[in-house]
């Protein structure tokens, strides 16, 4: 253990004297700044609606009474004004209301990117809005909520699991490989290999460096964004488990190559695959089975559980156990391979 600790202290000193450490800290600070000052607590999704009425005076009053008053509806004078306004706001829609043979007709003006379902939704929305103002109209729609106590995260907090997964689980994989290949390139690995130390001590020290960086950046980020409302013991467990897994995977992949350039292709494929569950995370309607088996999927979702006030603790604990075990197995495999390949 003394030799492992000595190796860790040396690696920590090298990290503090190098760029990687400060880049990671810098990236965490940038992420915090973006979340706090650029991304709103919740994204506003209201859509502006511009209306021009080509009607007589009394008809105009009648339609305006039906529409009521809303911040999202703007009445303009001409169709040209609608188009100008929509060019400035690419999410807005518009309508021109006319009278034809004593019937009100409306012509929708859309941006062009809306698909059929979106068009139908907008039409139903407008018609529904108008119908609801007709005296005597009542709706038969009932709403049943399956999960009565479901919690929602703010859009800002919802992004933290994505960042933590990328930072701890994926970038760790890449950076630990860079550390190993840097040592190989400088030849210091050979000097270490002819000292009375074990290969696992060299590898474990590198993993400890990754863990140190992962813990610092994760805790700083979560503290800055979420504060003290989550269980930090679970956060510690998740970060340790995911970091162990990510860096052990990085070690295992590195053991098959002798230069960073040769390893880059495989690393790239792994990182891209690990990024795919982000789609399911941000767009829950896309959730095929194959994406759930990718390691980053449970990472993101267990971190999300942690962010909830009443998150599923058993799910979190299970994921900690699984990833610690997987990390350990990968570490044993990497150590076995590196015994043969570290200095070759």
């Amino acid at each position: 253990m003394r030799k492992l600790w000595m190796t860790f202290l040396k690696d920590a000193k090298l990290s503090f004297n190098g760029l990687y450490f400060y880049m990671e800290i810098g990236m965490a600070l940038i992420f915090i700044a973006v979340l706090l000052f650029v991304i709103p607590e919740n994204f506003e999704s209201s859509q502006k609606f511009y209306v021009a009425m080509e009607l007589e005076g009394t008809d105009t009053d009648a339609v305006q009474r039906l529409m009521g008053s809303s911040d999202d509806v703007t009445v303009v004078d001409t169709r040209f004004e609608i188009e100008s306004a929509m060019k400035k706001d690419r999410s807005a829609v518009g309508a021109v209301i006319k009278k034809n043979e004593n019937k009100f007709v409306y012509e929708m003006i859309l941006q062009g990117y809306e698909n059929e379902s979106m068009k139908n939704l907008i039409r139903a929305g407008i018609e529904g809005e108008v119908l609801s103002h007709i005296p005597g109209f009542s709706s038969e729609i009932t709403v049943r909520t399956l999960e009565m106590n479901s919690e929602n995260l703010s859009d800002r907090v919802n992004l933290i699991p994505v960042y933590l997964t990328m930072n701890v689980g994926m970038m760790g994989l890449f950076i630990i490989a860079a550390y190993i290949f840097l040592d190989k390139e400088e030849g210091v690995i050979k000097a270490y290999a002819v000292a009375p130390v074990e290969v696992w001590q060299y590898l474990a020290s590198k993993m400890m460096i990754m863990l140190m960086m992962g813990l610092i950046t994760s805790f700083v980020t979560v503290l800055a964004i979420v504060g003290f409302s989550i269980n930090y013991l679970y956060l510690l467990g998740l970060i340790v488990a995911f970091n162990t897994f990510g860096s052990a995977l990085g070690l295992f992949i590195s053991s098959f190559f002798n230069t960073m350039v040769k390893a880059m292709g495989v690393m790239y494929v792994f990182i891209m695959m690990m990024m795919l569950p982000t789609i399911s995370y941000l767009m829950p309607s896309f959730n095929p089975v194959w994406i759930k088996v990718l390691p980053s999927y449970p990472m993101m979702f267990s971190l999300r559980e942690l962010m909830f006030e009443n998150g599923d603790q058993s799910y979190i604990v299970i994921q900690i156990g699984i990833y610690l075990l997987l990390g350990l197995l990968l570490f044993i495999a990497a150590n076995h391979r590196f015994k043969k390949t570290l200095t070759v």
Partner: protein
Amino acid sequence: MIKVNGLYHSYSKDENYAVKNVDFEIAKGEVFGFLGPSGAGKSTTQGILTGLLPIQKGEVEVVGYDIRHPKREMFNKIGVSFEQSNVYGKLTALENLEFYRKLFDVETMKSMDLLKWVGLDHVANKKAGEFSKGMKHRLTFIRSMLNNPELWFLDEPTTGLDPAIASQIKDIVKEKNNQGTTVFLTTHNMYVADELCHRVAFIIDGEIKLIDSPRNLKLQHGEKFVVVEHLENDVLKKEQLSLDIDQDKARLNEIISSGKIEMMHTKEATLEEIFIKVTGRGLE
């Protein structure tokens, strides 16, 4: 200290051997030189002996350990100085030595003493990345002495150093050898080998062609001549005289008696000449 039997190594793991059928033994206290040109198989052999390369075929014993089943404690007894300097550029010279010193389980030398020994004490707290090539080489060299090794592997220890530093390094090797350290010296520099080694092995194309002491090699392969430059009737004359021919021996005596010798040296073969004669190849 070292026993090597039928050692083979192929990087491509086929019949294209970088080292083939190498046999030798090195006794305790000996300085053994591995002499050969670049690509001859010197570094491959040293790589296997130090455990940096896996052993494929053959038997190797180093300081009593079977290299097929090496134990990490073996490295408490050996020191390895590499041809290419490999120190942590972002650590100071002192930090480099202190880190490695703490990895050993045996008594170690003091880092500052070693730095003083090779004239690096004034830059002890300077980052090694800012060192010149020669300074890095000296740091790599003294790092290999930290554990007072019983067996010391030196790979081209004087290459690229200025003559004064090279001489200092050679003196250190001699001193450590006098204290009982066994040295395995890999070099293509015949002068270093001649000066330091008790025995040398000539290796070429992965095969050892010959093992003997430099003295025996010179006796066997050199020509016993003396070159004399002397004044005769105020005219400078240069003569090459054989020590095996009676007539030449008499002539040498005559010149010595005349007392007008300006220069005289024996003309034994250099190791390089013997190497070329034995292997048909040069050392560069």
